[in-house]
C-alpha cells in the first residue's frame, strides 16, 4: 500500500424527494455537514472530487461544473469520476489515491443525484449502445432480474427458496432503515407483503427494489499526519479493489461475476483479510435488489456459491447475525445513485468510528463498503478500519 490515508469526516443529506432544494443546494447540504463533522473549513481542502450519474439523468451535463460553488471548489483543483452505480466508490478511490500520492493533505469527495428531476430508466437506456442492446433495454430491473434468474438456474436454487430468502432480505433492510434518520424509505414490511407486492420484472417485486432518491454525500480524506493532528477518531482505509468487465452483456458469466469476486479479493489482500465472514464486523453492500444481494454475498466469499439463500434464512446477515449487512438499510431503502456508493463508505466509516448512533453495530472495527456500476459491468470495494 501507498501512504496511509484516513477519513476524518462524513456528511449526508436527508435522502428522499428533495423538491425543496435546487440540485446545487442539495450538494452543499452534504458538504456543510461533512466540514462540520471533520471540524475544518473550505480553506483546509486541497482538492475536490465529484461524481454523479451521466449527465442525461438530470439534464445538466458536467455536474462538476454545475456544483463548483456548492462543493466549495472555487480556486481549487477538481476531478470528476463517473462509473454509473459504482461512482460513489470510484470517487472515494480517487480521493484515496490523491492523498496517498502525497500531493494533497485533505481532499473533499462528493457524490450526488436528484432522481426526481429526470426519468431515470429512460436516461439509463443511454448507457446501452444504440446498435445492439438499447432496443431491448428494460432498465436496471431488467438486467438485475436476468442476472438473478441465471444465478438461481445455475446453482439449482428452487424458486420458493430464492423468493423466501429475498423476502427476508427486504424485511431486514427495511427494519434497519428505521434506525437511520437519513434513509429515504422508512417503513417496516412483512414477509407476506414482500411476496405479494406488485410485480416489476418477475420474480422481482416492488419491495425487492430500491427507490429513486434525491441525495448527496460528502466524505473527507486526510493524510496520516493531518489526521493524527486534527481528528480524534479517524477511520483508516485498509484496502480497496476495483474490476471491470466487458460492455457487451452475454460475454461474461454474471452468476459468478468475476468483477465482484476479484474486486473483493484485491481489497481483502490489501487489508490482510482471509476469512471475510469472520473478520469483517459490518458489510455495507450495494443492494438495490434483494435477489442480487445474494449474488454479492457469494462473490465476496461470505458463503459458498449457491448457498447464499441458506445463510440468509439462518439470519447470518441480519443486524444480530454473524455479519450484519447494511445496518443503514442499504441501497434498498435509499438510492441517489451518484451518492450511493459513497454513502456505503460513509456508513462503514460511521460504524468503525462508533458514530452510527441507533444503527451502530457494537464493537465494529472493520467494515466493507461496495458499489456496482453499469450493466453489471464494474465492481468497487473499499474496506475501512478503526486501526491504522
Amino acid at each position, binding site marked *: 500500500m501507498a501512504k496511509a490515508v484516513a477519513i476524518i469526516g462524513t456528511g449526508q443529506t436527508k435522502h428522499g424527494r428533495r423538491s425543496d432544494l435546487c440540485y446545487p443546494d442539495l450538494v452543499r447540504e452534504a458538504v456543510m455537514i461533512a466540514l462540520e463533522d471533520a471540524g475544518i473549513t473550505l480553506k483546509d481542502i486541497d482538492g475536490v472530487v465529484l461524481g454523479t450519474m451521466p449527465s442525461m439523468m438530470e439534464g445538466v451535463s458536467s455536474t462538476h461544473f454545475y456544483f463548483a460553488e456548492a462543493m466549495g471548489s472555487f480556486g481549487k483543483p477538481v476531478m470528476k469520476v463517473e462509473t454509473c452505480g459504482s461512482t460513489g466508490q470510484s470517487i472515494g478511490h480517487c480521493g484515496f489515491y490523491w492523498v496517498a500520492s502525497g500531493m494533497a493533505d485533505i481532499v473533499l469527495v462528493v457524490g450526488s443525484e436528484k432522481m426526481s428531476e429526470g426519468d431515470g430508466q429512460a436516461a439509463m437506456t443511454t448507457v446501452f449502445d444504440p446498435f445492439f442492446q438499447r432496443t431491448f433495454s428494460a432498465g436496471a*430491473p431488467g438486467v438485475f432480474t436476468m442476472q438473478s434468474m441465471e444465478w438461481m438456474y445455475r446453482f439449482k436454487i428452487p424458486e420458493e427458496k430464492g423468493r423466501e430468502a429475498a423476502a427476508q432480505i427486504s424485511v431486514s433492510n427495511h427494519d434497519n432503515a428505521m434506525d437511520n434518520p437519513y434513509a429515504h424509505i422508512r417503513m417496516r414490511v412483512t414477509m407476506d407483503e414482500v411476496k405479494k407486492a406488485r410485480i416489476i420484472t418477475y420474480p422481482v417485486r416492488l419491495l425487492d427494489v430500491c427507490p429513486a432518491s434525491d441525495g448527496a454525500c460528502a466524505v473527507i480524506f486526510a493524510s496520516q499526519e493531518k489526521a493524527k493532528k486534527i481528528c480524534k477518531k479517524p477511520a483508516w482505509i485498509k484496502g480497496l479493489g476495483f474490476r471491470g468487465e466487458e460492455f457487451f452483456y452475454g460475454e461474461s458469466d454474471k452468476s459468478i461475476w468475476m468483477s465482484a469476486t476479484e474486486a473483493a479479493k484485491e481489497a481483502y489482500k490489501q487489508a490482510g483479510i482471509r476469512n471475510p465472514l469472520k473478520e469483517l464486523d459490518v458489510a455495507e453492500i450495494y443492494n438495490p435488489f434483494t435477489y442480487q444481494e445474494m449474488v454479492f454475498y457469494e462473490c465476496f466469499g461470505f458463503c459458498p456459491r449457491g448457498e447464499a439463500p441458506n445463510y440468509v434464512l439462518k439470519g447470518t446477515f441480519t443486524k444480530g447475525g454473524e455479519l450484519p449487512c447494511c445496518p443503514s438499510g442499504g441501497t434498498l431503502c435509499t438510492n441517489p445513485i451518484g451518492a450511493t456508493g459513497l454513502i456505503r463508505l460513509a456508513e462503514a466509516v460511521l460504524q468503525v468510528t462508533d458514530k452510527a448512533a441507533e444503527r451502530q453495530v457494537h464493537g465494529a472495527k472493520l467494515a466493507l463498503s461496495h458499489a456496482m456500476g453499469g450493466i453489471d459491468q464494474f465492481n468497487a470495494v473499499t474496506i475501512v478500519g478503526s486501526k491504522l
Partner: protein
Amino acid sequence: MSKEEYRIVKGQVMVPYELALGRTWSTFYDYLKEEKIMGKKCGKCSRVLVPPRSFCPRCFEDMEEWVEVSQEGVVETWVYVNMPFFGQELKIPFISAQIRLDGSDTGFTHQVAGIDLSDFDKVRETVKLGGRVKAVWSKEKKGNILDIAYFEPVK
C-alpha cells in the same frame, strides 16, 4: 415551507446523434439483410462472438475471420418487462433475453416473442432458461437489430 416554494420547472432536452457503425458492424447488418447471422472468431482464443466485434476483448487482437452461426440457440436468461418509461422502443409487455446461438461463445441481447405475452403465467410455461429458440426475420430489413424480429420458442 409552503407548497408554493417547491417550484418545479418542466423541460425537455433533445439531442440528435449520427453514429458511425464502422466496418464490422456495417457488415453484420449487411448479412442480416440476407438473413444470415454472422459472428467473428478470434485467431488467438478461438472464441466466436455474436454480435461480431472488430477486436477480441480478451486478447485485444483484431478479429478477421467471419463465421456463420446457427439461427437457433439457447435462452441463457430472460425477463418479462411490463414497466413503462419515456422513449421505450418496444411496446410492453415484451421479453428481453440473452440468447446463445449454436456456434457462438457468447450470449447476445434480443427478445423472445411469437407467443401470447398477455398472460405471464402462460409465458412462464413456454419460456424457460435453457430452452431453445429460433430466429424469426422481419419482412422489411432496415439495417438494425430488429431485422431479426424476435426469437421464437422451438417445440
